[in-house]
């Protein structure tokens, strides 16, 4: 009897924890159908209106578009630069090894508020106007360390004999890289890019320090929170969540199929 209860403790706590994790997301989803008017605080009745007209509330879609623009550019640049660094550091010898490692790890151990404040100090010193450019730079910096760490793990785990085999078969180093190494790195690079985009899109603290009057989606919600967030923001939040679910599910299915295919060989 005691054994039986014991068996259920971990699934019990774990299951409750999943509920805890998902309660606010369910709340956001339900209240995206609220016939709310300006402040979405209490339930006033069911409507599809918010979903049919997600740009109905002022500034919601503008801030969303801004966030997407920042996220896409920051993701592309940080993934490209970070991937190059990861490959370079694993495959080539350098003199200032320790220093580069510190420069990569330190941003990960620095709280966002300090990253934001130091960049703000830098931009104030340079006399740059805060806005789109400064946000993109800030996001590139804090995403890049994550990209480097993620991709570097992938590069180090590659079997060097694969490239040697390609060389034995008269492949040039360049061809070996693009035909063998790079395709094997793609899953890691995609994961790093998705992570970068998620972090950039959702970032508030660093953005708040370096954005001036430029509005991003998290900034919009933070400011709106004091007087009530329009239901359209819930629509966008829910849509993002559903889109993310689909992306993750597709990724899982692809990984599953790949494993199956490899197992069959």
């Amino acid at each position, binding site marked *: 009897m005691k054994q039986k209860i014991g068996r259920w403790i971990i699934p019990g706590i774990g299951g409750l924890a999943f509920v805890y*994790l998902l309660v606010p997301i369910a709340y956001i989803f339900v*209240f995206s159908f609220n016939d709310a008017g300006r402040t979405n605080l209490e339930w006033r009745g069911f409507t599809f209106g918010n979903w049919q007209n997600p740009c109905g509330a002022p500034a919601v879609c503008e801030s969303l578009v801004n966030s997407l623009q920042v996220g896409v550019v920051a993701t592309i640049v940080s993934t490209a630069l970070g991937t*190059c660094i990861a490959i370079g550091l694993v495959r080539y010898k*350098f003199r200032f090894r320790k220093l580069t490692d510190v420069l990569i790890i330190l941003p990960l151990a*620095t*709280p966002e508020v300090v990253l934001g404040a130091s960049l703000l100090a830098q931009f104030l010193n340079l006399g740059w106007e805060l806005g789109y450019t400064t946000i993109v730079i800030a996001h590139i*910096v804090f995403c890049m360390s994550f990209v480097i760490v993620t991709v570097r793990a992938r590069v180090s785990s590659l079997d060097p004999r694969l490239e040697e085999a390609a060389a034995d078969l008269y492949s040039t180093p360049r061809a070996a890289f693009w035909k063998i190494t790079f395709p094997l790195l793609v899953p890691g690079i995609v994961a790093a890019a998705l992570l970068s985009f*998620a972090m950039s899109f959702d970032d508030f*603290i660093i953005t708040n320090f370096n954005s001036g009057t430029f509005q991003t989606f998290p900034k919009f919600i933070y400011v709106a929170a004091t007087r009530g967030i329009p239901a359209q923001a819930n629509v966008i939040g829910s849509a993002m969540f559903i889109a993310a679910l689909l992306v993750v599910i597709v990724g899982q299915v692809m990984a599953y199929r790949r494993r199956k295919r490899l197992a069959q060989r």
Partner: protein
Amino acid sequence: MSKMVMTKKGKIADLRSAEEIKAERRKGRTGVYLVVPGMLVLFLFFALPVIVLLSMSLYARPEGAEIGEFVPALEFGNYVTVLSAYWSELVRSFGFALIATVLALLIGYPMAYLVAVRLRQHGLLQGILLVLLIAPFFSSFILRTQAWKQILADEGWVAQTLKLIAVLPADGHLTATPFAVVAGLTYNFLPFMVLPIYANLGRLDTRLLEASGDLYASPMTSFFKVTLPLSAPGVFAGTLLTFIPAAGDYVNAALLGNNRNTTMIGQVIDSRFFKVIDYPGAAALSFILMLSILILVTLYIRRFGTKELM
């Protein structure tokens, strides 16, 4: 691979052909091209800004200067001023972050264990729960924090129910309390705790547990002697990934807290920068926060870290 050999005199002789050496050098230059652009960005927009922040923290405000006007100086008194004024906020931030980290570990470990070990034979359910673990990363965390605020609000059903069963006094609140801030921190950084532990437990060889069971270890003993030590690197990474952002966070404190006993250091830095326009004070506080975290993390790594983590 290498064709270097030690000669009798201890010198290194190079037995490679000229072409091979040339090829390797070309390779070396490619490495520089790969690494330099990104490192330049990190240097210009991470290392340099931290130095600028440090120098700004020592600026002085001349007599009769306008608001926001400072001159470069070596005013170490700034540190004394902000530390004495905001000591309690600093301690509170670390306290809240610590409690949130411990709570996230207590909640997150069973989650990770459930998904990684218990559901190993149930691919579909495992996949679904894993998706649910990752998905919150993609939904706005401010929106979720605000949702908590509304769920726990005085007129919400959670607070009403707790009052009905007299867990909460009739004039009590759930929001605008330290409890709400710590709960928010725990909630928001929970996936950062679960995912590294999950990654570690995913590689756990369950035959080890069977073996320890065969040797008459109780499930409890097996857990503490086998499972937990093997997942230690994941726990270690998870606690760091939770503690560091939690200590600097101010969104939870701003949305779920009040102005009296939940103010965290991030809020102070933000308001000194933007409301009070006290750049040196804000810079000094930022630097103190960064340094204290680095010291704490270093001590923690020394005490619990293993080599393969870094």
